[in-house]
């Protein structure tokens, strides 16, 4: 993958995250707004860039990896709920990354590697 494509993916991914977060900021009530914090912003941007640069077939392994990662994201969200209740947002939501690594990493080793 060229450095230009990697840089472009980062740029478009960052813009997509800002776009979805603005939709979330306008949303109410808060739980509804929270849906947009788990929007597929980076995925949408990255898959679209891969399609343009390498064609649709090249995106399939990315989508397979993402499906595994999204199981980790569900685990992360559930654990972060428990931890935010006890440790506040910053510590709770960072510690919950361990749940993502455990579930996504574990599943990847079992089925995706």
């Amino acid at each position, binding site marked *: 993958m060229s450095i230009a494509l*990697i840089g472009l993916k980062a740029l478009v*991914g*960052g813009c997509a995250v800002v776009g979805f977060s603005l939709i979330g900021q306008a949303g109410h*009530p808060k*739980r509804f707004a929270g849906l947009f914090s788990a929007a597929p912003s980076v995925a949408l941007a990255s898959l*679209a860039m891969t399609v343009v640069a390498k064609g649709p077939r090249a995106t399939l392994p990315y989508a397979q*990896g993402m499906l595994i990662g999204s199981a980790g994201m569900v685990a992360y969200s559930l654990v972060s709920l428990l931890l935010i209740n006890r440790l506040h947002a910053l510590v709770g939501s960072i510690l919950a990354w361990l749940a993502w690594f455990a579930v996504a990493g574990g599943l990847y080793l079992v089925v995706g590697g």
Partner: protein
Amino acid sequence: MDGRQLRDDDLESVGFDWSKLRKASPPELLIRFVFGGGIALVAAIAASVFGPRFGGLFLAFPAVLPAALTLIEKKEGTTKAWADASGGVLGAIGLAAFAFTALQLLRANPAVALAVALLAWLLVSGGLYFLFRETGLFLWQDKRLMKSR
């Protein structure tokens, strides 16, 4: 956490107040851009080094959430941050629907596949949100989690 504040928040109508965007601060947007762009960069580099399936994992990594939740907690309190995170659980289930739909359709027509996958995310996460809201599942979940503290 304030149970009454959560209930009051849930009673609010569902929609978008676009005038709130006037209050969006450039430094906060920059933080989101940096974390969002950062994880896209990590995914692309990981794909280059370890293969696209491994890189794809990071397309569903919650890189922006700690910063976003911390900003909400700082401005509106822990209860609102928790409410946002509780919506995030349903959004994450929708994310799996996005990946599954994209995987099924990308080979045929990528533009349509990504549009339908985005629709799948919206329908699954939005559908679950209304299911939880209308059936009182949010209330049940709040009680269980507050009790477990």
